[in-house]
């Protein structure tokens, strides 16, 4: 037993004596959560919208006023010719422009029809899409008001009433927190574990350790333990950041969430061990973890692109990524507040993966030099 403690404390020394490792293990998770939570957000705030039109027109005034009142939009400049509009969009001073035709109010009242065009910066399609849909929203609510005024009765047009459950504000942290949590735990457990084992192989220290009477199983266990402990710390800090900084609620049971995280950590440690068995240099291990584990996790786990819109082949491939199941469970438990019964399928898949990966990689771990 003393041997194991000596091993584990030695492993911690390796982690804390190398500043880069310490940074990766303890600082990177916090930075990632904050980055994804704030900077890398798909919401558009305070998009500048220019107006090209006659500001003495009452209807134009009314629309401009409601755009100004919208929390996501902001009126930039009132322009009087299209060249200025192009110039400002090209220079990035405005995200979009609204062009009203002459006599907007008069035409609307007399002919019941007037045209306005939304010009937005297609160089950034995502933001352009979002901003123009915000503007459309504002205009259509104005339109509704006018219809009501003109007909004097109830709404003449039909409008769907969209209600978003669990995340009414469409807060993107609700998606990123579970995803980044999966990514961080995966990165620390698989990449750091495999690199630490392969480093011993590469530097030849594994040679001496293997000659010792300590059984290989205990060597593996003592290699995994420090990263398990660090994962627990990271899990707690990510949860704290999520709740207190990102305002993401924990609606389900924390015990269940922790249990799921532990199972996921187990499967990631298994993956790390597997990588360390098949690679003989630290670079190989890094590449395998980076390209083989982290990239697919980011791309295919549903963190960035929804799994449902992928081609069937990729969907099948995404099924073998443990992070996908973890992220699904975390979303269900954390955001929807689901209980054990509604995650039983995903949980069994994840547990199966953990058992298989750990069993397989421990079995494959060489008790001699290759």
């Amino acid at each position, binding site marked *: 037993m003393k041997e194991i403690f*000596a091993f584990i404390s*030695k492993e911690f*020394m390796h982690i804390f004596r*190398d500043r880069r490792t310490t940074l990766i293990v303890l600082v990177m998770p916090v930075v990632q959560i904050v980055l994804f939570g704030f900077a890398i957000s798909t919401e558009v705030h305070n998009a500048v919208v220019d107006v090209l039109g006659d500001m003495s027109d009452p209807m134009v005034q009314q629309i401009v006023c409601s755009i100004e009142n919208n929390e996501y939009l902001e009126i930039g400049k009132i322009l009087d010719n299209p060249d200025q509009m192009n110039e400002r969009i090209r220079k990035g001073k405005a995200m979009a422009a609204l062009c009203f035709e002459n006599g907007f109010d008069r035409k609307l009242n007399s002919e019941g029809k007037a045209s306005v065009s939304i010009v937005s910066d297609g160089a950034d399609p995502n933001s352009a899409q979002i901003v123009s849909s915000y503007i459309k929203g504002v205009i259509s609510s104005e339109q509704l008001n006018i219809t009501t005024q003109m007909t004097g009765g109830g709404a003449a047009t039909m409008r769907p009433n969209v209600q978003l459950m669990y995340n009414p504000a469409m807060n993107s942290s609700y998606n990123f927190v579970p995803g980044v949590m999966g990514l961080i735990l995966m990165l620390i457990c698989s990449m750091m574990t495999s690199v630490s084992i392969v480093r011993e192989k590469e530097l*030849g220290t594994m040679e*001496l350790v293997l000659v*010792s009477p300590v059984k290989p199983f205990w060597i593996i266990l003592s290699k995994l333990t420090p990263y398990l402990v660090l994962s627990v710390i990271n899990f707690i800090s990510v949860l704290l950041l999520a709740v207190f900084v990102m305002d993401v609620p924990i609606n389900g049971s924390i015990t269940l969430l922790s249990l799921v995280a532990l199972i996921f950590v187990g499967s990631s440690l298994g993956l790390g061990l597997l990588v360390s068995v098949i690679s003989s240099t630290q670079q190989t291990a890094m590449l395998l973890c980076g390209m083989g584990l982290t990239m697919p996790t980011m791309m295919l786990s549903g963190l960035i692109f929804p799994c449902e819109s992928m081609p069937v082949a990729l969907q099948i491939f995404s099924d073998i990524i443990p992070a996908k199941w973890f992220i699904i469970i975390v979303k269900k438990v954390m955001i929807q507040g689901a209980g054990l019964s509604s995650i039983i399928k995903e949980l069994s898949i994840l547990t199966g993966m953990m058992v298989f990966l750990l069993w397989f990689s421990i079995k494959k771990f060489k008790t001699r030099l*290759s």
Partner: protein
Amino acid sequence: MSGNIAIKVEGISKSYKATKALENINLEIKEGEIFGLIGPDGAGKTSLFRILTTLSIADSGKASVNGRDVVDNYEDIRRTIGYMPGHFALYQDLSVEENLNFYATVFGTTVEENYDTIKEIYSQIEMFKTRRAGALSGGMKQKLALCCALVHKPDVLFLDEPTTGVDAVSRKEFWAMLSRIKKSGVTIMVSTPYMDEASLCDRIALILNGKIIDQGTPEEIRSHYRNRLYSVKGNNMFQILQILSPLSGILSCSSFGCECHVAVDDNGPDEKSLLATLESKGVTGCTVERINASIEDCFIGLS
């Protein structure tokens, strides 16, 4: 010396893909002796060490350490041997003391318990005990590695090229340490590419291209040398080598520092005719002297 066999190697062969690293190696190493495995780089020394320290498995043949088979009883062997690999295999980011404590604990003992075994060597590096192992000099790294290999009082000590890359003074000190360790009853198997270290071993085996080409005490090996050997000294060594090498009856002609060793077969030239040949080609001021073979001469003769 008890004369019991500590390490027995019977017909060991090992190849890596197409390369034959070891071919039918047979060795018997007695308890309490220093056994030297002598050969150039790539001769197969490390491969044999890895098989004996249970780190790799031979393709064919059997080997045992202290009567235990290296494949079937590898766990027992791991408890009773000390191993110092050819490269520095301690943790560079751990201090001297931490390394030593770690290896002591891993082998189920403590530094205090076996302090006597390592005292003599450890006392020389104890003043640096808080320094990181990576920051030690070559000689000190080697002493630390030896301490770590000895800290659990092994019966058999495997030292793979312990003096490679170490300065001449430290090498001498190291061999002095080995003979003291030997006195405590430890069997030592050491490999080295330096022929001059051969005479410091009780018995040696010469290894080349994965084959043992001769074995015995250093005296025995020297006495196996069948040819006449001359040492030629002169100012222009390059010229001497060029003149003598193509002569008939000369088996080999190799430079040894500031002299040249010329091996001659039974019908070859003697001192006088060698000197005469050199002088006839205009190389003057040379001395030719008949000498006894060194281990290196034997090695050249056998290879």
